[in-house]
């Protein structure tokens, strides 16, 4: 009979549920963990709690109607999601958008990116135990939402884009409001670093945690800040530019460390880049029409169309197979969160449960985007 300590006190693997109603999963995501003590052996996401089958619904909808479904996927990148479908329809019909539309779309997209990153930053801090960040993030995000509300009547699911341009023109005070926000925000963003980024506890919770190599990042199809945190140049705005990104110069933020802190820093830097992009454009909004007349019933030509845009989470792809009718024969939304989540197991196995919370936070998951 053996009598060593490790035999008498041997550990056993067991299953534990995290979610579907867990504060750190930001929505209804259930993770089935296999753990040995506190060490994670396996993570298996259980999806579908809010699956609405948007792809099936879209098969009976017109293209104008589909636009309104897309901002219910990744609701924090509502504007970019709308833009993806609109660009697809416009490209398929070979419609050229006025410069004014392109520039306004880009400004709104970058404001959305800042708003999304602010919410992420707030809950990221909260997930690792820093409650104040949530208040700071929401304080500044409110100002962007106010601009959205005044421009298009909605604060979250904006529906500002339509195939053929924009739903309304911007108001005369739009430029001034955006500039006021940027002036305010540029004084606040450095505070974020002193409050959270440089905090010793935060650094210890994130540095070297949740490592994802560049090779795996590509193989898992990750994109956005998750891919770029692993040193992989995947910015759709750079590689497949659309709207006003074709003529503006901006830096793609890339970190090579591949850990949680790297993904965090990518998003903080991206907010600075978004500020630069908006400042570049806000005084140069060309005069002209804010929409182009389209037919009441839009029929796409027969064929296959693919459009990708860079949302706050990464690469959103819309793939349409058209048979020449007013509905798509098949529409597929390749959502960034879905692919980013698939890399979670690789990042966290061998880590601790506390690390899992930090890692899911930097994946910046929006569950309706994954479930669709």
């Amino acid at each position: 009979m053996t009598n060593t300590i490790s035999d008498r006190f041997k550990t056993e693997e067991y299953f534990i549920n995290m979610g579907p109603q867990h504060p750190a999963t930001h929505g209804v995501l259930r993770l089935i963990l296999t753990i040995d003590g506190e060490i994670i052996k396996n993570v298996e996401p259980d999806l579908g709690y809010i699956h609405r089958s948007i792809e099936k619904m879209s098969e009976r909808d017109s293209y104008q109607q589909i636009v309104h479904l897309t901002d219910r996927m990744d609701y924090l990148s509502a504007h970019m999601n709308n833009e993806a479908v609109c660009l697809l329809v416009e490209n398929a019909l070979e419609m050229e958008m006025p410069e004014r539309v392109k520039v306004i779309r880009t400004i709104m997209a970058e404001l959305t990116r800042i708003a999304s990153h602010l919410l992420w930053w707030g809950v990221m801090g909260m997930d690792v135990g820093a409650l104040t960040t949530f208040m700071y993030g929401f304080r500044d995000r409110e100002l962007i939402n106010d601009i959205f509300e005044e421009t298009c009547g909605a604060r979250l699911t904006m529906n500002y884009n339509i195939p053929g341009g924009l739903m309304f023109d911007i108001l005369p005070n739009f430029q001034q409001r955006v500039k006021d926000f940027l002036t305010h925000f540029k004084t606040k963003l450095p505070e974020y670093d002193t409050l959270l980024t440089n905090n010793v506890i935060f650094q210890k919770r994130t540095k070297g945690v949740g490592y994802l190599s560049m090779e795996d990042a590509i193989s898992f199809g990750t994109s956005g800040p998750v891919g770029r945190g692993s040193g992989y140049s995947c910015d759709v705005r750079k590689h497949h530019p659309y709207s006003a990104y074709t003529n503006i110069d901006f830096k793609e933020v890339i970190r090579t460390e591949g850990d949680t802190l790297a993904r965090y820093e990518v998003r903080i830097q991206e907010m600075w880049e978004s500020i630069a992009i908006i400042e570049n454009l806000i005084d140069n909004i060309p005069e002209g029409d804010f929409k182009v007349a389209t037919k009441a019933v839009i029929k796409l030509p027969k064929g296959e169309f693919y459009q990708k845009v860079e949302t706050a989470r990464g690469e959103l792809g819309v793939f349409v197979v058209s048979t020449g009718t007013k509905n798509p024969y098949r529409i597929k939304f390749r959502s960034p969160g879905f692919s980013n989540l698939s890399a979670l197991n690789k990042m966290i196995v061998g880590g601790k449960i506390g690390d899992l919370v930090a890692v899911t936070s930097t994946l910046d998951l929006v569950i309706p985007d994954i479930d669709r």
Partner: protein
Amino acid sequence: MSDQELQDILTEFDLGLVFSEETSQYLTVRVPKEGLHLLMNKLKSDINLSFDYLFCLTGIDWGEELGVIYHLESTTHRHSLVVKVQTADRENPILDSVEDIWLTANFHEMEVFDFFGIKFKNHPNLKRLFLPKDWTGYPLRKDYVDTINMVVK
């Protein structure tokens, strides 16, 4: 690499590839399902092609056949390719898994299995991803009928 150069290289593979004439911004090729895994392996490992990024994997019901469409991109050469494969067996459709080539296929193939019922051979963990385990039928198929949950216009 331009689409024409890509087409020349792919033709040399001699896998019975058919190039599509349909409207699409990408070069599109149809492969018989027996040659799928071999072709995908070559697309990933050939240094001149190195398609290392599978950015979209779509299941589709063509009415008679069930199929899968793969969108590939090379992160080094920045060229793209679309590969299509299909099977006429609607009762027991089986295709090769590409999970061993691109890890992202793991989740995407589960999604296709969930909605189209296509089984992927050699997939490590094929199960329903979104729908409950006891769900009957495959909702994104064109012949799927659900009188309770579907609103028919």
